């Protein structure tokens, strides 16, 4: 398509990484949340990425598919961790069960931080791609000077 198509693709990557970063910070913030409106402790969330046509119009999307390339990225779903929560013995807690155990979210802050760093790096890579493409568009415009 065009250089502007490249910007659209990178922008979709930035958006997807931003959503992922939001979920990671949500996980970190709720690492100790033992009660939620739905009952039970907070459950870890993660974004699932999928390729998506980045074309703004039907014809543009069709042309992209026909040319077999340049796909953007989109968050197809947000998965919620369904594994058993971690149980800690805290008999005084109002969320404790009959045995005195409290269900805590199964969230490892180190793991979340590493994911957050990965998200940041990917976001940075998309920004670098956009700024390079922006330079190229600028240079095309310079042809008329």
């Amino acid at each position, binding site marked *: 398509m065009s250089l502007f198509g490249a910007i659209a693709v990178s922008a*979709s*990557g930035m958006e997807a990484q931003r959503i992922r970063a939001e979920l990671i910070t949500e996980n970190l913030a709720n690492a100790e949340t033992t009660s939620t409106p739905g009952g039970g402790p907070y459950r870890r969330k993660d974004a699932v990425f999928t390729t998506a046509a980045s074309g703004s119009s039907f014809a543009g999307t069709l042309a992209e598919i026909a040319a077999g390339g340049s796909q953007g990225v989109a968050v197809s779903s947000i998965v919620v961790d369904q594994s058993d929560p971690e149980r800690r013995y805290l008999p005084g807690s109002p969320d404790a069960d009959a045995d005195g155990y409290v269900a805590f979210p199964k969230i490892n802050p180190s793991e979340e931080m590493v994911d957050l760093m990965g998200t940041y790096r990917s976001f940075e890579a998309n920004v670098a791609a*956009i700024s390079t493409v922006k330079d190229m568009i600028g240079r095309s415009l310079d042809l008329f000077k």
Partner: protein
Amino acid sequence: MPAPYPRARNLPIRQNPDVPDLRPDQPPEQVSDGDRIAIGENMPLAGGGLDLGSYLTYLARRQEVVASNIANADTPGYKTRDVEMPGDFTSVFAQFTPMAAEVEGLTTRNDGNNVSMDREARLLAENDIRFNLASQLLRSRIKGIRSAIEEGRSS
């Protein structure tokens, strides 16, 4: 027998018997395709068999595919894509958008994704430099045309 060479606007020709008629009655010899590229009407921008405009189009397309690879660096199952540089720009780029194909020989991770950020960063920089070079060349050609239009008075 070729048709007689058409006179300009079919104006009546004033014949002076003392001056020989220098205008040819025969059309000029046919030029070969190779000559036509060299001396054709679009020579200044697509001359020398090097179509810089198409090369820029190719680089723009490639940059788009690289951007797509970077955007999908965390997408499970995504395979790195690239556009091959065709040997002959003039014929290939006239009609088709260059096709993107999957790249062989990259390490695939557990989630089925094989985007190598190092490779994409290199291509991003490489394409930028190539684009810079080609646009500088095209610019100097355009400058030459402008200089001819302005009879060499400027630039």
